[in-house]
C-alpha cells in the first residue's frame, strides 16, 4: 500500500507518495523492475484543475530528459510537461484517451501516464528529488503564493 507525506495549505491537503522520485516540474517516476512509470503529482493536478484532455507521446517514442512528454489541457490552463527521464515509451495509459479525469481522481495510481524503458547511460534519475525534497519544494512554493 502506498504511503504518503502530506502538507496542508488553507483547506487544501497535498499528498506526496513516498515510493517514488520527483521532477521539479511535478512529474513522478516510480521505478519498476523492467521500466519506470511516470505520472503527475497530486500538487500539480490540484493546482491546475480538472483535466479535459491529456495528449501523451505514443508508444515507441524515444524521449530525452527534458523533451515534451505530455500536454495536458485543464479547465484552467494548457500545460506542457517534459520527460523526467530519458528512454523509450513502451506503454501509454489507455485511460488518457477515454477518461483523463483519472489523473485528478487517482494521480499516483490509475492516473499514471506512461511507462518508459530507460535507455541506459544518463537516464536522468540522478536529477530527481526525493519525496521529502519534493514536499519541501512544493510547500515553499505554495506558501509563497498565498502570502
Amino acid at each position, binding site marked *: 500500500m502506498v504511503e504518503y507525506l502530506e502538507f496542508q495549505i488553507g483547506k487544501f491537503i497535498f499528498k506526496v507518495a513516498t515510493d517514488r522520485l520527483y521532477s521539479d516540474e511535478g512529474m513522478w517516476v516510480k521505478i519498476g523492475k523492467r521500466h519506470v512509470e511516470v505520472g503527475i503529482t497530486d500538487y500539480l493536478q490540484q493546482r491546475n*484543475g*480538472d483535466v*479535459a*484532455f491529456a495528449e501523451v507521446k505514443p508508444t515507441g517514442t524515444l524521449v530525452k530528459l527534458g523533451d515534451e512528454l505530455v500536454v495536458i489541457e485543464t*479547465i484552467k490552463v494548457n500545460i506542457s510537461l517534459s520527460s523526467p527521464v530519458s528512454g523509450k515509451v513502451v506503454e501509454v495509459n489507455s485511460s488518457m484517451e477515454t477518461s483523463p*479525469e483519472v489523473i*485528478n481522481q487517482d494521480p499516483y495510481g490509475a492516473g499514471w501516464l506512461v511507462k518508459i524503458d530507460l535507455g541506459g547511460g544518463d537516464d536522468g534519475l540522478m536529477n530527481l528529488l526525493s519525496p521529502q525534497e519534493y514536499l519541501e519544494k512544493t510547500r515553499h512554493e505554495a506558501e509563497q503564493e498565498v502570502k
Partner: protein
Amino acid sequence: MTDIIQKPKVVIVPCSGIGKTYGTVSREAAYNITEDLRPENTRLVALSKLVLGEEEARSVVANHPAITIDGCKLACATKMVQESGGCVARDYAVLDVYRRYKQFKPQGIAELNEGGEKLAQALADEIALAVDELTSEQGEIENG
C-alpha cells in the same frame, strides 16, 4: 368539451459560477434552451435563488423535473436542486460535453469566444432532446 392540456415544464438550472468560462457556457446553453430551442416547455431557475432559499424558486424546482448544468465537479446546481426537494432528471457537466466536442475550445468569461458559443449550442441541442423525452414521458403519465 375541450380539454386544455397544459404542456409540462422542465426546469433548467445552470451553474452560477461567475468569472468562470465553464460557468458561462452553462448559462449560455440554458438561455439557448429556455429562450430559443424549447421556450414552451422549459423554465429557467437561477441557482442563486435556490441558494437564498427563495420560496417560488424552491416550489418550481420541487414540482417539476429538473435538468442541471454544472460548470465544475463541485456540481452546485445538482446539489442545490436536490437540497431544494427537487428531482434531477438529467445532469450535465460542461467538461464532459467539451470532451465530446474537443473542436470547440471555450474561452472568455463575460463574452465567450466562438468555440465557447458553439459548445454552448451543442450542449443546448443535447439538452433540448432530453427535454423532449421528459415532456413526452410526463405527457404520457398525465394522459394515462
